[in-house]
């Protein structure tokens, strides 16, 4: 039996990333994400997970009863579900994690209002600078809460909502309840249930009919404390004919114990709307990154996931697009880089639930120094989804003999009149390519990095320039010390 996508509800996604639009700074500065700041929490729940902790989180947030009940029910579902028996090895002691850590009393509307120690963190990550240069809005989450939020004034005037999800529960309850937990049910998978029980922070976005947001909205997720679990919850609603590009980045310093990042991201793209969601996760290599991401695309709507996974110990993440009405389009571009001690189990899901829908998955994975990169993907065509078209291309590059790449493509087609294509390739960096580049004066390390950068170029060029620059920097960091 295949492990993996056999159930109709699997899904997990990761959402870690680094985003950072950083500028300046040379590659020489070794992992600039691996630093800790001393920022005392204003509240920290005790270690472990039970109904009391869940109630405490809900109480701290002064939530309505429906949300508290949703959390408690989700906890039961979490406890009743077995661990996934496929994907990677998950060695997490759920009682050893801190599930809620409130870093500050209130969210800043300007960076000056953010406590110094926290602000310093985001300064180092280049977020305020990026915001000034090319973003329409920013959310910065530190541990469990969003500590800073901004949105361009003209967008607010047009009715765009960009807030943290906790605030949305209070201020936009009707809009939120229409979709919250409806795209990804707590019963979907164990980690979706966990997130539903203890979620905190994340982004809530509403883009009204016909509003096209030109510059990206960005969220940055930072775990700073040890043994901290981060469980943000994001909901994006793109109304008819509207357009948004949302970018998330995630980093954490390296600790000796494992941490857990388990997000849920739900997206609705209505008729002729367009949403692009870009993730560049660069978690520390001791973080389990187990994330569920799913979008529903309606008539003529387009949903694009661009998913870059560089960090984490184990990532299990398969962004999904359900094409619900005719003409919907789903596109998933995935990059995974697995180095020593890392397993990237990443991929994508496309579900054609209506006629004339089209999808594309492009996956590029790189493994080196004993890392393991797996592509796991599902293309499903429901009965009646005539004239649906999907193509899947996955390419793997293996940098040495100790590293591993696997492909797990699942295809379920219940309709005759469709066109589905799948191509896969595995390659190694060739001695001849290296010789050619080194004969022109490039060191072997530079040559390898260049070959790897070229390998992912088709995906990187889809990123806005600032992120493309960041992605290339991250690849260079990953490649350091990989030769010799």
């Amino acid at each position, binding site marked *: 039996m295949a492990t993996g996508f056999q159930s109709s509800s699997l899904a997990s996604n990761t959402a870690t990333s680094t985003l950072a639009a950083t500028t300046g700074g*040379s*590659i*020489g500065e070794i992992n600039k994400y691996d630093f800790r700041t001393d920022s005392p929490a204003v509240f920290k729940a005790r270690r472990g997970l039970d109904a009391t902790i869940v109630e405490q989180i809900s109480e701290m947030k002064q939530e309505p009863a429906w949300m508290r009940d949703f959390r408690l029910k989700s906890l039961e579902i979490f406890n009743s579900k077995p661990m996934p028996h496929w994907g990677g090895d998950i060695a997490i002691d759920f009682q050893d994690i801190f599930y809620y850590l409130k870093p500050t009393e209130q969210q800043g509307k300007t960076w000056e209002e953010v406590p110094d120690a926290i602000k310093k963190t985001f300064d180092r990550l280049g977020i305020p600078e990026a915001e000034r240069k090319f973003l329409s809005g920013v959310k910065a989450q530190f541990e469990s809460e969003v500590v800073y939020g901004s949105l361009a004034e003209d967008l607010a005037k047009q009715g765009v909502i960009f807030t943290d999800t906790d605030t949305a529960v209070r201020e936009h309850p009707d809009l939120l309840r229409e979709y919250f937990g409806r795209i990804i049910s707590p019963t979907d998978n164990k980690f979706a249930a966990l997130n539903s029980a203890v979620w905190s922070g994340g982004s809530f976005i509403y883009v009204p009919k016909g509003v096209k947001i030109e510059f990206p909205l960005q969220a940055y997720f930072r775990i700073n404390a040890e043994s901290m679990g981060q469980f943000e919850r994001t909901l994006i609603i793109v109304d008819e004919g509207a357009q948004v590009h949302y970018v998330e980045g995630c980093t954490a310093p390296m600790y000796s114990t494992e941490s857990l990042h388990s997000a849920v991201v739900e997206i609705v793209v209505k008729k002729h709307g367009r949403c692009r969601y870009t993730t560049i996760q660069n978690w520390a290599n001791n973080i389990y990154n187990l994330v569920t991401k799913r979008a529903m695309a309606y008539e003529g709507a387009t949903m694009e996931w661009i998913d870059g996974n560089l960090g984490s110990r184990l990532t299990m993440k398969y962004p999904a697009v359900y094409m619900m009405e005719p003409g919907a389009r789903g596109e998933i571009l995935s990059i995974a880089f697995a180095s020593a001690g890392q397993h990237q189990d990443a991929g994508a899901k496309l579900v054609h639930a209506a006629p004339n829908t089209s999808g594309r998955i492009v996956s590029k994975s790189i493994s080196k120094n004993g890392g393991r990169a797996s592509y796991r993907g599902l293309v499903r065509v429901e009965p009646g989804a005539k004239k649906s078209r999907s193509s899947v291309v996955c390419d793997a590059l293996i940098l040495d003999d100790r590293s591993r790449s696997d492909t797990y493509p699942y295809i379920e087609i219940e309709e005759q009149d469709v066109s589905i294509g799948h191509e896969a390739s595995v390659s190694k960096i*060739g*001695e*001849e*390519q290296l*010789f*050619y*580049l*080194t*004969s*022109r*004066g*490039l*060191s*072997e*390390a*530079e*040559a390898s990095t*260049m*070959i790897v*950068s*070229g*390998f*992912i*170029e*088709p995906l990187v060029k889809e990123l806005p320039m600032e992120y493309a620059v960041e992605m290339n920097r991250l690849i260079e960091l990953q490649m350091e010390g990989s030769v010799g």
Partner: protein
Amino acid sequence: MTAQSQEKLVVTGLRAAVDGQEILKGVNLEIGRGEIHALMGPNGSGKSTLGYCIMGHPSYEVTAGSIELVAADGTRHDLLAMEPDQRARAGIFLAFQRPMSIPGVRLADFLRHAVTNVRNPDRKEGQELMPMRDFRSELKAKMADLSIDTEFARRYVNDGFSGGEMKRAEILQLAMLRPKFAILDETDSGLDADAVRLASQSIAQIGGAEMGILIITHHEQLLEHNIPLRTHVMLGGRIVESGGPELAAELHKKGYERIRAAYPDAAAAEESMQESNDNKVPLKTQAVLA
């Protein structure tokens, strides 16, 4: 040694093997900066192998002899002790007969790295590249000189290039890197007559008093604008005869029969090398082609 005023690339008694089979059986060659030398010989005689050995291809094992750069003051630098990138930084260049494609890497980006390293041999990884503005204007000028469309620089290195485009890309790299010594390995192969003429003119334009060039070729046309000071004939892994430009003309017209007859040992070596290499064109066919 007598006092030297000219920098030289000196190959002495070079023996080299690939996969345990000896290809070079004692090659001697000396090229001064500013000189053009032609290297001719039948397929499989070891011409490309010599180029690879000078550049440091990891598949070729040098078993005896030396390859040295001799400075104007007589100081000798052992190329065999250097990695390929160090050799490039020391001023050696090999134009590949079949250049590798590097998908996703733009020719301009690759060249900017290469030029930066070659011009600052002590550059450490991660240090600044040559300023983009300077690089671009220089590249643009060189491309104009060589009648290459600027769009070319944005393409991925040799990816989907025609044979002619690959050779032009090699010549462009030669022009940008301005090595002290360049080995051009059949830069004319796979090109039509017009393209060979253009390549020949381009090389003449790039070379000059600052560059020593070893032109490996089967044909005469590439030498039209690059009259060799010396022509060397390789057979069975050795340079068996050297002469002036008239030797190239003779070989082009009459083939290698006279050479084979004059050097029976080398011819025998060639035959045995051919036998153990199925991929090469059979000897008889070669003679007809020559």
